[in-house]
């Protein structure tokens, strides 16, 4: 029983990681339909930001707290630069966007290698986050996993509220639903695009900070994550956040259960088969955005 609950929590925490890395993509890919292959490198930028900050801020806890907003801005700024310099010129050419951002991702990886060296770097986690909470029955829940779960949920809540309640959110939704109509209604769509891209890329930076608690910090860390992130958004359905949230947790629990009953490799196969089957049934993903636009 203990193991069962332990596994359930593992599944939820895998889901939280998936959600965090996919959330930014749910904006840039899900809302703007830009296939940004360099999204993983924005995650990497967030992780390296934590590393750089730890060189000057020695307290592990403080540096992590400072790293969250700084990484958001660093990755967000990189995203805006990418949007302004390249993606904006290619909005009508998705295949070119894909190839260009793929190239950008390789360039960023090499840049990281030149600046920080090709071996992984280490960051110190605050002692509080390396421990765990003991529950009755011998069950333990890792603090870093709880932190990531909280961070993911907070990010979803903030994003949802921002999209629902703020004028900026209204503009973003208007552009997503019908770009032309939004433009003729006086919305500066290119400025909205830039802001959306900033938010989406910034969220990737946030994910990067969180991932320093779990995995390797190296030039190629982003490439390992990008496929999972796209899967979550595609299965969740484009143009909606709630789809990504539900799918991230569902895939996490499926992965953890499959892995417990079989092995990691087989569990991955189970997850991919489930995704293929699901997309045969609902090619548009879990939720679709109903719009009147003809696009």
């Amino acid at each position, binding site marked *: 029983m203990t193991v069962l609950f332990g596994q359930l929590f593992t599944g939820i925490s895998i889901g939280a990681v998936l959600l965090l890395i996919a959330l930014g993509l749910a904006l840039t890919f899900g809302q703007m*339909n830009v296939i940004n292959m360099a999204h993983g490198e924005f995650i990497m930028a967030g992780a390296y930001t934590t590393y750089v900050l730890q060189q000057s801020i020695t307290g592990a806890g403080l540096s992590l707290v400072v790293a969250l907003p700084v990484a958001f801005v660093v990755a967000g700024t990189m995203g805006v630069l990418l949007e302004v310099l390249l993606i904006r010129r290619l909005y009508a050419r998705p295949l070119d966007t894909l190839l260009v951002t793929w190239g950008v991702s390789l360039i960023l990886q090499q840049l990281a290698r030149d600046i920080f060296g*090709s*071996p992984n770097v280490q960051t110190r986690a605050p002692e509080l986050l390396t421990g765990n909470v003991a529950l009755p029955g011998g069950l333990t829940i890792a603090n*870093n996993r709880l932190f990531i779960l909280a961070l993911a949920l907070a990010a979803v809540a903030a994003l949802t509220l921002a999209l629902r309640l703020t004028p900026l959110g209204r503009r973003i939704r208007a552009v997503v639903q019908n770009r032309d109509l939004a433009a003729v209604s006086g919305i500066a769509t290119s400025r909205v695009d830039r802001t959306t891209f900033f938010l989406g890329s910034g969220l990737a930076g946030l994910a990067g900070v969180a991932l320093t608690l779990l*995995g390797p910090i190296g030039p*190629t860390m982003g490439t390992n994550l990008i496929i999972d992130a796209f899967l979550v958004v595609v299965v969740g359905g484009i143009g909606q956040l709630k789809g990504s949230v539900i799918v991230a947790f569902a895939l996490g629990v499926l992965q953890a259960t499959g892995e417990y009953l079989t092995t990691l*490799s087989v569990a991955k196969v189970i997850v991919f088969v489930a995704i293929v089957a699901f997309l045969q049934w609902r090619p548009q993903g879990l939720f679709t955005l109903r719009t009147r636009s003809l*696009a």
Partner: protein
Amino acid sequence: MSIFRGRRILAGAMTLVAAAAMTACGSKTTDEGGATGVTADVSGDTVKVGLLNSLSGTMAISEVTVRDSIMLAVEEINAAGGVLGKKIQPVGEDGASDWPTFAEKAEKLISEDRVAAVFGCWTSASRKAVKPVFEKNKALLFYPVQYEGLEQSPYIFYTGATTNQQIVPGLDYLKSQGAKSVYLVGSDYVFPRTANKIIKAYAAANGMTVLGEDYAPLGSTEFGTIVNKVKSSGADAVFNTLNGDSNVAFFKEYKSAGLSAAAMPVVSVSIAEEEVKGIGTQYLEGQLTAWNYYQTTPGAANSKFVAAYKAKYGADKPTSDPMEAAYVGVHLWKAMVEKAGAFDVEKVRSASDGITFDAPEGLVTVDGKTQHIAKTARIGKIGADGLITEVWNSGKPVAPDPYLKTYPWASGLS
């Protein structure tokens, strides 16, 4: 643009990513036949040797350090007058972490550059890819990394440890510490699977229980479930044959689950000084490793090696076991050539038996029959400073036994 068009393109992109990943696993069959050896070109006052390491791709992290230490050995030998009066001229090639490329570059070094010997390769997959090339051309490869044993090519000298010089001593140490049960965690490819077969045979014969065995695909970084399984097994120790980035995720998860070196020690065979830096001592302090060399290994030969390496490549660069084995390989080749009095491959091979070298890891001796070297096994503990200090050694060099013929429990293997 339509949503669906975007998705179709995305599917294409994912295929592209997957294909890029797959090429790393591809293999190439090398054509056999035309078995005439290519003789090395030693007509001038220099002798060419080939250096075949991945300078790009996923293995570059590790293999660049090996290339660096080979270059250090070459420079030392040249400064001391070369080999048989000829200066060594290194010819470098990039294997690019791609096994067919390794085979291609090996062929190029042997046939076009006509090198006297080649130093390099890291993964077993790359060694298996170049093996037929060296055998067909009757050329020499010096392979510097610990590996899964069960191999003995007449044209390869293995200067890293075989299983009875690393894994078996690791198990002996655990047994001497009173471990009655182990859990096996490894990456999903040939080395961990072979190593675990050997460990299971050892355990069965030595009254140890293997409580579980789990494999993660190379590059996997999600270890929640595996660590849960390890924890609930209540094993006395964990034997870790994970490779690369997976180690980082595994040890971070291990610590968050409340497991520690004191409660359940992990013996790793792929974590050397360089890897410790990338994982973080916060997560590794007190854990065990099995190798034949550490930067802290005592002795004048090692002080000289460490000082020379740091002077050339930077004070923050650690030295590790595979680097040391590569460095030793070059010096052993020089000694073999000088004993043979010629660069001719067959003469070098027959001169190899009994060659000794005062290596940084201690005295090593070439065993001409297996073409492996006798080396001292050392178990180390990772310290807070990121260096590894020895807690046990075999006392004397262990004779190589790639097929574990001298171990009765291993009779059912291979």
